[in-house]
């Protein structure tokens, strides 16, 4: 072994040229995040994705590696977002009996919930003077990042920012849902679950599943349906808003 190969910076340069290295880093960081989340009893604040993003992001910043270079390896994970989005038809299919039984409540809460989710975000963001690109990144924040990033791309937002805003929204929804519903005296687990699925996608759904099975089923349904509705509403509302 030569001296040069022991030089840490030369070693890093070698690793950074291997796309496989960044794929491995991505998976490892997510596993670390997942372990930390499990150790906290799956507390919403210990979100595995957020931990993984912080770990990888810090490593890239410290080593001066560009996101483009990192993405050469990480895109093998990223490309699965498309088929995963299509697969969100599964929770709709599995909960079709719920739709058949409560189609009026589900339809109305879905339509109004999606409108309020996007509308309140745009109005508040405008009132606080946020920039247009941030507005477009924020608008789809209530739906799963798989769909929200695609929407943000369509309307001139910033997909990476949207991904993180979506995760933050999910964490906030998961933390707020129980105290908020108690405050409003809403005891029906169908209503509670559907609300958190509409407003806080997969992270809210995971929280609902921890609390109650019925709430979890309604949350999964709300999350998938809102993905569809929000993809249609965001371009329309942003157009009206501009």
């Amino acid at each position, binding site marked *: 072994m030569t001296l040069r190969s022991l030089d840490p910076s030369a070693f890093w340069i070698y690793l950074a040229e291997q796309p496989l290295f960044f794929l491995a880093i991505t998976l490892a960081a*997510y596993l670390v995040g997942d372990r930390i989340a499990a150790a906290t009893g799956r507390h919403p604040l210990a979100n595995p994705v957020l931990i993984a993003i912080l770990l990888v992001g810090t490593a890239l910043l410290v080593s001066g590696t560009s996101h483009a270079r990192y993405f050469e390896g990480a895109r093998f994970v990223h490309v699965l*977002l498309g088929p995963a989005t299509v697969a969100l038809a599964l929770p709709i299919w599995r909960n079709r009996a719920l739709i058949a039984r409560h189609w009026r409540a589900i339809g*109305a809460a879905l339509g109004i919930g999606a409108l309020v989710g996007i509308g309140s*975000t745009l109005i508040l963001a405008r009132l606080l003077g946020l920039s247009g690109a941030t507005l477009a990144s924020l608008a789809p924040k209530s739906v799963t990042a798989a769909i929200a990033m695609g*929407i943000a791309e369509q309307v001139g937002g910033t997909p990476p920012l949207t991904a993180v805003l979506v995760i933050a929204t999910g964490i906030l929804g998961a933390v707020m849902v129980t105290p908020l519903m108690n405050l409003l005296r809403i005891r029906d687990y*169908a209503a509670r679950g559907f609300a958190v699925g509409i407003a806080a996608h997969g992270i809210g759904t995971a929280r609902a599943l921890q609390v109650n099975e019925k709430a979890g089923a309604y949350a999964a349904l709300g999350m998938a349906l809102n993905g569809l509705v929000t993809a249609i509403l965001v*371009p329309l509302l942003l157009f009206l808003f501009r």
Partner: protein
Amino acid sequence: MLEGLTILIFLQFTGELIAGVTRLPIPGPVIGLALLAGFALWRGRMPEPVVIAGDAILRHLSLLFVPAGVGLIAFGDRLAREGLLIVIVLVLSTAITMAVTALVFRALTRDDGDSA
């Protein structure tokens, strides 16, 4: 697994084509999702390979957000400038959305006799 994945990717591709041809500002995969849900509800069945592949991908859905999310490192300036205001928007609008959705849902299920 492979058969289901092929169907999912084919549906995504079909969705992208429809979005491209119609120039709808809707992501192709979302159109694929609508196609799959519509097909299953229409035929009254979901193809088993799609269930197998779909569940496998969805089990680790959140892992798939990491590569794009790391892109945030390029937006440190904007976050420093707008971060606090963004958090205020997220907290308020998420609370409002959950409250309104739950209230509408409850108002329309009260008479169904299945609110327990």
